[in-house]
């Protein structure tokens, strides 16, 4: 039972990280209707900046620099690439982000090489045991940080003028523009926020028990895609639920993979995608996504 509780807590913690990434993905989609396939590379960029700077600056300033770095990369992608394409077909824009992803990912994996970089986090591999349930400190920190950031984000989304502008732009771009909302700012803001959230997620994807930042980290980050999709691409609630669902499934499938040996090794990495396919078969717009209604 206590192992199950451990898997569950680890899963929720992992899921909150996925939710953080998926949230950024959804924010970009809502603000600009562009699916950002370069999201995993943004995350890798944030993690890389933190990893390079933590020796000189110390951990917390380096983390801030990583967040800022990823936000700048996100904003730069928006400003130099996406903005030039505004008005183009959305599937073409999605392919443009794939081009950006190829560029960013090649550069970052070349820099990282075969190294495994530490991000210099203060938690190390210490664990906390409560009532027979042992959980790594990093997992608790991840849960707290993700919870805090998500709450802050949702509050800002609801109550600040930035959030109102963003929601208005998501509702109807033309009307929002006519009401004096500067779509360019909304969209660059969305990309920057998404980058920042991804950088925090990068930290928690690479701390104990994972060895550190490596090439494969972007593969782990990719699991936020099924999270965002199965929740529904245009729903922030969906991103959270999807993230948790994916995290818990992955954690349980990895934890019990001894019992699932007939499915082959590494079934945990596959579980998020299988859950996504199952959900999409029943609900093609995801759990919380807006069903498309079109007027002809």
């Amino acid at each position: 039972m206590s192992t199950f509780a451990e898997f569950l807590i680890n899963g929720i913690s992992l899921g909150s990280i996925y939710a953080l990434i998926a949230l950024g993905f959804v924010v970009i989609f809502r603000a600009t209707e562009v699916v950002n396939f370069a999201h995993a590379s943004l995350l890798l960029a944030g993690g890389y900046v933190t990893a390079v700077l933590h020796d000189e600056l110390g951990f917390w300033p380096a983390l801030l620099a990583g967040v800022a770095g990823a936000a700048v990369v996100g904003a730069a992608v928006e400003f130099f690439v996406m903005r030039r394409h505004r008005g183009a077909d959305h599937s073409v824009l999605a392919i443009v982000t794939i081009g950006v992803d190829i560029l960013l990912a090649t550069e970052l994996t070349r820099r990282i090489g075969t190294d495994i970089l530490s991000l210099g986090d203060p938690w190390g591999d210490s664990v906390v045991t409560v009532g027979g349930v042992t959980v790594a400190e990093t997992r608790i920190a991840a849960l707290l940080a993700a919870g805090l950031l998500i709450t802050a984000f949702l509050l800002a989304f609801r109550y600040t003028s930035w959030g109102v502008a963003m929601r208005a732009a998501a509702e109807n771009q033309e009307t929002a523009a006519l009401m004096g909302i500067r779509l360019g700012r909304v969209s660059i803001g969305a990309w920057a926020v998404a980058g920042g959230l991804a950088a925090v997620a990068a930290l928690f994807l690479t701390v104990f028990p994972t060895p550190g930042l490596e090439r494969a980290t972007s593969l782990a980050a990719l699991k936020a895609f099924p999270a965002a999709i199965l929740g529904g691409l245009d729903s922030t609630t969906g991103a959270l639920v999807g993230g948790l669902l994916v995290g818990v499934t992955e954690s349980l499938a990895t934890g019990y993979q001894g019992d699932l040996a007939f499915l082959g090794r590494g079934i945990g990495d596959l579980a998020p995608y299988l859950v996504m396919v199952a959900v999409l078969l029943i609900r093609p717009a995801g759990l919380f996504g807006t069903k498309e209604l079109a007027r002809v």
Partner: protein
Amino acid sequence: MSETLARSGLRVGSPAVYGGAAACLVLLVLPFYLDRFWLQAGLFAMAAALGAIGINLLTGATGQLSMGHAFFLAVGAYGYCAFAGDGADGLAGLGLPGWLAAVLAVALSGLAGGVFSPIAGRLRGAYLGIATLALIFIGQHVLFNAHDLTGGYNGRAVPPLSLFGLTFDDTELLVAQVPFGAVEKLWYLGLILLLGGVLFARGVLRGRPGRAMNAIRDHRIAAGVMGIPVARYRAAVFVLSSMYAGLAGVLLALVFQRTVPEYFGMALSLEYLAMIVIGGLGSVAGAVAGGVFVSLLPQLLNRYSDALPLVSAPGTGGIAPGEAARYLYGAAVVAVVLFLPGGLARLAARRPGKPGSGKGPKNPTHTPTTNEPSGEAR
């Protein structure tokens, strides 16, 4: 018929016909002069072109984003091995004749696409793109784990193809004093397959199905109202695209002579998307051009890495040729959409003397988004 000919710009005596004939002749005599490296590179380009035609039918002409193309290539490649293998290496094999195995492998790819059609027929846009991402990971999982069928991490050897008593392996055959090995023989097979693939895809795109596909891409609801069975068309295009991928997979397997699971990863799917964007969405010629560009680029850089600035041999610390190629085609994707919507195909069509000939179907980048109802956009 005459309208079709006129539209394609193919009139007897026009420069395009002479140019095409000359190009065909050059392609036919190349194996007599080029060495193994170039022929192999050319064969990779042909396989890539076939695969790119497939994904261009799906993503370019019908507007269905697919990130799972590599999966269907893998089905084709491994399907061929499994049908043609004789089980001598301890891996499952039916021992069928090579040509039958190749046909069955292509059919199997189509079947795999058909199995996915409950999803492919219902999801659109980004949802479909990410759902097809699942195929890649499922495919990789199976390839690494189904050891008896795929050989696991080390992959499996590809049995040579034999057709009409001619075996496409390295037993040398003297043709006009030139020894023909596997690549020389496969070169002609590749040319025939590519020609067939191009003609078939052009036929599909220029006829009724092509118009229906473009209508679905440009406005799904309007297409449905006009009586196009949208869901059935989408599923059918998905199957057809998978079969093209399967054929490309078989050809690749024959050239590689060994299939390894790592090759069929996500990077390959992204490469195919890059090909069709660079070449031109929705156009067959564009798919071929893009396929040749993206698949030849790393090999050229690799070959001439000594002579090129900034590029150095792999493992020496600088930018390896493979990475340099990825930088180039990643940038090409972004640049093409920025500066050359319609890709290389439109560049060719824009030549002076043919003003606005509009070769290839209208590109989706030119669809004014303001005409779309807001619901259609997501």
